[in-house]
């Protein structure tokens, strides 16, 4: 009985659900004769997707956006990580720098994006920097929190066998921070997709966001939806990569259920 119900929940039910959602969508579009420029049926989106996957223009734009995402993420994450260490380790740095960081974080990045485009131009670098400003904060906040999260009893244990501050940091604080850092990476990678697209919306000559705007402008709704599907797949794939790395690095947390909550 248990096997049957788990099989039902594992494969049959989700498939049934998908058939219901997409079948219903398809049927509704035909039945109500919804115009294509309002809502395309799933079949049209699939066709547009297949067409896009075969075009070199799409490949080029995909590559550009992927580069913006990955480079911006790497830059922002590294910056957040380094500044996080600095703030966590030096109370002076915390008092000097942190207020500015918080003030900057409360700014909506979409509002800052046009300035960055003016400063860094319509090319890739402005998109990378916009993405980096968005990926930065999750890492900063989680690194600071993580470096302070080491359980007091683990620290006491080390101190009792004459460990120095530096040894406590290396042997416990750093390791205890890893789960938090990975939560930061996970949030940051998903936000990076948004960052790159926002950057392209503000002003770009290439990229999936640029392509999306063009198709939207031409009332090519099926094409627009196809790109949205690609964007969401990029997000899912990058999230899965971070999760896979995380499972390998923080292997000791897989067995227990005490992993910090993630997106």
């Amino acid at each position, binding site marked *: 009985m248990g096997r049957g119900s788990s099989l039902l929940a594992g494969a049959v039910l989700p498939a049934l659900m998908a058939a219901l959602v997409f079948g219903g969508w398809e049927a509704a579009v035909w039945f109500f004769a919804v115009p294509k420029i309002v809502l395309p049926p799933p079949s049209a989106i699939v066709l547009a997707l297949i067409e896009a996957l075969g075009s070199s223009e799409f490949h080029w734009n995909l590559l550009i956006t992927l580069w913006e995402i990955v480079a911006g993420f790497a830059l922002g994450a590294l910056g957040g990580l380094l500044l996080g260490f600095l703030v966590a380790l030096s109370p002076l740095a915390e008092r000097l720098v942190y207020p500015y960081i918080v003030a900057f974080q409360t700014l909506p990045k979409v509002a800052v994006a046009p300035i960055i485009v003016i400063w860094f131009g319509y090319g890739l670098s402005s998109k990378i920097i916009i993405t980096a400003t968005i990926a930065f904060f999750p890492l900063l906040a989680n690194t600071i929190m993580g470096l302070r999260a080491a359980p007091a009893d683990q620290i006491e244990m080390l*101190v009792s*066998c*004459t460990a120095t501050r530096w040894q406590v940091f290396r042997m416990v604080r750093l390791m205890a921070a890893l789960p938090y850092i990975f939560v930061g990476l996970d949030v940051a990678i998903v936000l990076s997709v948004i960052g790159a697209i926002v950057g392209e919306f503000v002003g770009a000559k290439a990229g999936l966001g640029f392509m999306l705007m063009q198709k939207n402008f031409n009332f090519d709704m099926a094409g627009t939806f196809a790109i949205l599907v690609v964007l969401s797949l990029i997000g899912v794939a990058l999230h899965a990569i971070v999760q896979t790395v995380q499972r390998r690095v*923080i*292997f000791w947390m897989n067995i227990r259920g005490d992993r910090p909550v993630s997106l």
Partner: protein
Amino acid sequence: MPQDGAFLRIHQVAKTYTARDGSSIQALRAIDLDIGEGEFVTLLGPSGCGKSTLLKILAGLLPRSAGEVTVQGRSLAGPSRALGVVFQAPVLLPWLTILENVLVPAKVQRIDPPLAAARARELLAMTELTGFENRYPFELSGGMQQRVGICRALVHDPAILLMDEPFGALDAMTRETMNEELQRIWQERRKTVLLVTHSIPEAIYLADRVVVMAPRPGHIVEVLPVDLPRPRTLEMQNTPEFGRYVSHLRGHFRAGGMLTA
């Protein structure tokens, strides 16, 4: 009591905590205790009488408000290599293997790695953990984890072993086995041991002397030498001599209250 030959001397140690609201709580008042080399002393007392406070002061984890602690005549200030500490919880680092966990003090104190590893393996063998060297803490039972904690406290070969309710979290059966094992370790290694416990039979079974404490503020009410032959067996707990020790100590903790000396 050997006044001059004392190995670990606790002299007039007092501790007053300052609470968050600024008020002060006196946890320990004028503790005097001399422990001989190789002696096994157990510390017995009701909750809140300052046992952990005393142990933390000895371990150098907590500053004392007054008094002095000396080991072989030398004043103890802060954590020391002469000490090994076993905590109530095993406190193993989950990202390290069992062997690496045992080696933590050796790494901290930069003990020659091959030498330390050999000693760690020997300790693991003594506590019947051979074969688990490369396992991770979450793969071990609570009792096994606590034994790893004991190995870790011994790996740098400290002269003194401090234990704060090391078996408090274990079930009664495992606890008895651990007591037997601890006695065996102590007899093989001849460490000076100070062990905190809530259990009267455990205190008697292990001790050369039982130190009884009372709260508000924490002070010593009796030091009871246990004159039972070694090695002690669990069956000994059913003998009339053992029973006399138990009922004597139980007298301190009668119905609801605690007798103050």
